């Protein structure tokens, strides 16, 4: 269970990463938290010829709330693609009861420390929590490629299990969610055979 050979490029900016993806074409993959990709590499189920590592692209490490109207707990949330799940969980603890609850259900502490919010969303595993949140919260992702930038709404993102409408050369830079206002009600339930 060791990966097949691949080329590897560590990038420091979005521009570098997008350029590398453009060069790699269909056989390039983005490496961020690696919580899904690395096991697939090890099992040789995924065999990219190029891995574009974005772990040093610090411009993607932000959590912003826009148009909060002073409430501080609602509005359009923008999460940079390198934000770890644990980081957003810490942010959400005081600000978003819904998100705070959801993160408890994701993997284990070690997985949340490494796994990114955007990574889970674009991996498109129907058993994962964050895609459901993206759909429920009217979310979208911002994708950039050498061809430009576009925003893809959640309802247009998911085509099938583990399949999105993103192209191989597109890098998701940003996740957008509309958080429900504090006075609104919410619920989160999950049936899983195993946690």
């Amino acid at each position: 269970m060791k990966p097949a050979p691949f080329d590897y490029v560590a990038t420091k900016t979005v521009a570098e990463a997008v350029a590398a993806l453009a060069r790699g074409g269909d056989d390039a993959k983005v490496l961020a938290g690696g919580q899904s990709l690395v096991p697939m590499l090890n099992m040789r189920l995924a065999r990219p010829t190029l891995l574009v590592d974005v772990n040093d692209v610090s411009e993607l490490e932000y959590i912003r709330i826009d148009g909060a109207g002073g409430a501080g707990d609602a509005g359009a949330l923008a999460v940079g693609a390198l934000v770890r799940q644990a980081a957003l969980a810490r942010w959400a603890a005081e600000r978003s009861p819904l998100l705070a609850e959801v993160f408890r259900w994701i993997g284990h502490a070690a997985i949340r420390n490494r796994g990114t919010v955007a990574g889970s969303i674009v991996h498109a595993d129907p058993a994962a929590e964050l895609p459901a949140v993206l759909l429920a919260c009217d979310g979208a992702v911002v994708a950039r490629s050498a061809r430009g930038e576009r925003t893809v709404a959640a309802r247009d993102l998911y085509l099938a299990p583990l399949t999105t409408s993103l192209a191989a050369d597109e890098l998701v830079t940003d996740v957008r969610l509309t958080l429900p206002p504090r006075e609104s009600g919410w619920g989160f339930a999950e049936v899983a055979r195993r946690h």
Partner: protein
Amino acid sequence: MGAKYFGASVPRREDARFLRGEGRYVDDLKLPGLLHAAFVRSPHAHARVRAIRTERAKAHPAVTAVFTFADLERWMKPLPLFGAVPPGLAARVAVTMKQVPQYALVRDVARHVGEIVAMVVADSRALAEDAAELVEVDYEPLPAVVDVVAAGEPGAPVIHAEWGDNVAVRFTTGFGDVEAAFREAAVRVSERFTIQRYVGMPIETRGVVARWDARDGSLTTWNATQVVHFVQQGLVAALGLPPNRIRVIAPDVGGGFGTKANGYPEDLLIPVAAIACRRPVKWTEDRREHMTGSAHARGQIHDIEIAARRDGTMLAVRDRLWVDLGAYNSWGIVLPYNTVAHLLGPHRVPNLAVECTGVVTTKTPNAPYRGAGRPETVFAMDRIVDCLARELRMDPLALRRKNYLTASDLPYEIDIPYRDGNPLVYDSGDFRANLDAAVTAVDYAALRREQAELRARGVYRGIGISGYVEGTAIGPYEGATVRIDAAGHAVVATGACSQGQGHETSFAQVAADALGIPLEWVTVVGGDTAAIPFGVGTFASRSAVNAGSSIHVAAGQVREKLVAAAAALLEAAPSDVEIADGFASVRGAPASRLPLARVIQASLPTFAKPGPVNPDFEATVYRHQPTVTYTSAVHIAHVEVDPATGAVRILKYLVAHDCGRLINPIIVEGQIHGGVAQGVGGGLLEEMVYDEQGQLLTGTFMDYLVPTAMELPPIETVHLEFPSPRNPLGVKGIGEGGAISPPAALANAVEDALAPFGIRVTRTPLGPDVVRGLVRGASSRGGIGGAAPPITK
């Protein structure tokens, strides 16, 4: 024997290093010049290997060697076979049994996905895997044989041509007049039950390291095995070396469960690679390999019938069963016969007829896994007992109370031989006492009241009972050497190695008591063929009884030698000398107290004179254990089932059991907890699923679900102690017991919870799809309440 430590909850001495990550496993071993192996494994369930081309792999710059069967033919002796029919069994049961040599590398036909076709040795594991992809194999696919019943029928594609069919084991046995009993019985219930294929899943996968020493022509191999001496014997046969030139070491091993008590191709291939390459070689199994390359287990079908009087008195059981053995039959009668010998368990049943068929299929070979036939047979029996209760409109508890054997019935003979050929006679216990203890502990009556109240509100809770009687600690022996060093400390060596059972604690308790020294002075060595020349190994709940008893006897003999030496030094009669806490003294004369180190020092010869006694403070005992001791338990599961999602939640799980005298309650409870966890896996989560082409569909932990702490309820235990008369410690085996009853208890609980739907649970694991299917089927038959018989006393 002073019992200072025996029976005490001594914290496990080995845990400090395990919890700190300081254990040392096979994969931790680093040797200079180490090479790494990877294997080319068959992607087909059944295929003739037409040609293997290794040139491209050999040309890889990191590759040292590539081996096929033809390359290693001189060493390719058949892998070890187990489970021959012992004379005592053959005399009473006509067993047809076929076994076939299995080789470490495919010679001509691959018979399961994952069977090893070629071995690549390279500078690193990753590079070896790259090169393995360059080996080209021409396969001619042959028909897969997957369904166990169909595989045994005439006309099925034959897996081993020389057999003519796929039936590896067949026998009938029983006693009494079953036909008459069924004819005359007021009530008869029958059902087909399917126990899925599920497996032992140690956290540490298997691994082998081998080093050939050209200086003296000796081999040392480290192997994550439960059976170092069996591995040694296999190597002796294949390599033609005497045992003293082959040292097999099992260092810390992270779980075994029987999976590592099997004979494996890699046990031979890695040593052979080390000899051929003249360099040390390592292989650590990865989880993907483990899923198809390590033994599978379970996988049975039972067509079982029970006859009873209207008052619930059981009259007869008839069972026709099929055991899926996988591609080979290296375990002979073990799984089929274990299944049959444990069918009746705690019940008094005067008539029995069993027809057992063990069949080979093109799947990973099966081997004993924690329970080894018992969870399967208990599932069939406890399910049909609950079906009978429903038919009789009787509470399943009342039906069991009526038919369970009690202490006054024991010793009790089931009139067929045990697997070892000896009479099957329960030695001690009180199975109804187990039941009553369990029922009291869970407050069964309160649970029944709560069940009725909640049902009215649409909440479905159920209670499931399962009981077993288990032959544990199969012999014929496990040896022990006890040796005292110059400080008076002891080393205990035994062939029974630990995979987490806590031998370094429990065996030390036994030895320290028998020697009269502090526990801290005892070092336990298991898993090294250089430490003791003969051994059997750790499996079948056998170590406490077999090794523990030999340790007890050997340590007693060493104590006698110490007493003799102390008596000479103290100028006292040996009968007046006592040893305690590491000191010798004359009874009633505390001033005479001498440290054992002084006694030992004084026994050594000096220039002036020979020692007063020969300073031989060592004894080796291979105590004979002719047959098994019988452990028993009752498990009660309390569950809640959501009919909308099919989710099953365990609310409470209780085990009331007897494993004789407890050496260490913490360790016994740990064994039960671990066993129950694996039983919950079998009941709710785990299944090795094959498609019709014999491809494994559950080859990763994404598909094969093992329970974690999150899925497990708190497990309560009640200890009953009925000492075994069959060994000097009065102990019985408890390694497997926890895993035996959970599938049956959970299935009974789920059926009980969904009783208003009139469903019948016939298989495990009870995943949401299965539970929803049952509920849907019930709804289409007329819905809830349609056919639910009320339960009355």
